[in-house]
């Protein structure tokens, strides 16, 4: 499968594990998952991108869409990403200023907790 998705709850934060390629073909599945999580009242999300091998603007759009949805409920969506090749597209598009990007899931969770 091009894209593998999983999610679990940790300390009240919903963590989404993404593995594989997020592109125009696979991004809709991630989008649906994020919509689904928000519909189930999960407004504190962390998306773990450490196993993402490819991300394009469609994928970015899905993440931005997810961010907007949780923010409508005063929530937040943070990312975990240390891969330079993935960070590159966030930099090019200026989205490093928009998303909280952390080195590990634990750091992302800690950051969210300290923001509250």
């Amino acid at each position, binding site marked *: 499968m091009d894209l593998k998705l999983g999610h679990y709850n940790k300390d009240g934060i919903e963590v989404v594990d993404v593995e594989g390629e997020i592109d*125009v073909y696979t991004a809709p599945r991630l989008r649906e998952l994020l919509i689904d999580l928000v519909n189930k009242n999960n407004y504190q999300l962390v998306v773990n991108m450490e196993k993402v091998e490819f991300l394009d603007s469609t994928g*970015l759009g899905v993440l931005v869409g997810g961010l*907007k949805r949780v923010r409508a409920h005063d929530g937040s969506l943070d990312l975990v990403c240390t891969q330079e090749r993935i960070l590159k597209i966030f930099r090019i598009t200026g989205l490093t200023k*928009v998303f909280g990007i952390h080195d590990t899931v634990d750091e992302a969770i800690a950051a969210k907790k300290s923001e509250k």
Partner: protein
Amino acid sequence: MATVEVTFTPLPAHVRTARLVATAVARRSGVDESLLDEVRLAVGEACSRAVEAHQRHCPAEPVRIEMTDQDQRFVVTVSDHAPTAPARSAAAPATDNGIHDRAGQVGPGHDSAGHDSAGHDSTGRDGTGRDSIGYEAIGHDGGAAFPAGFGLAVISGLAEDVRVLSTSSGVSVRMSWPSTAAAS
């Protein structure tokens, strides 16, 4: 004549194939390993753009990608046949639920132009390939988060040489990267 030409039905499922072929041909042409991620991403963006344009305007027409070695550059051209209507926004401008970063500043190139689900093709821009990166509101759970020119903006950030040729019958996005002289 192009070194390699691929035509494919305008389906999202084929964009990955086009990326893989382009990356393989780039590598074979001597493009440096450190640039291959850029090639993959830029070609993917151009193909995604073309696929979406075809799905709106001419879903039976294939998208074409040509890859050539030329003057020590690896050149990729992605061509679509979607007519480029001027980007007229019939909808009223969306209210501002643009993205604000954590400091409360609006994201780069904030643009509140409306975006209808029929889409508008912004490739009628001039040939710089640069477009304002506008974040538009999602009025409902449909449609993209970004306006149509966003993919081109990403491509411009990745390839030093990008030319967009836009005519009434379609758009070509031409990108190139340095390659070593062909060994064979």
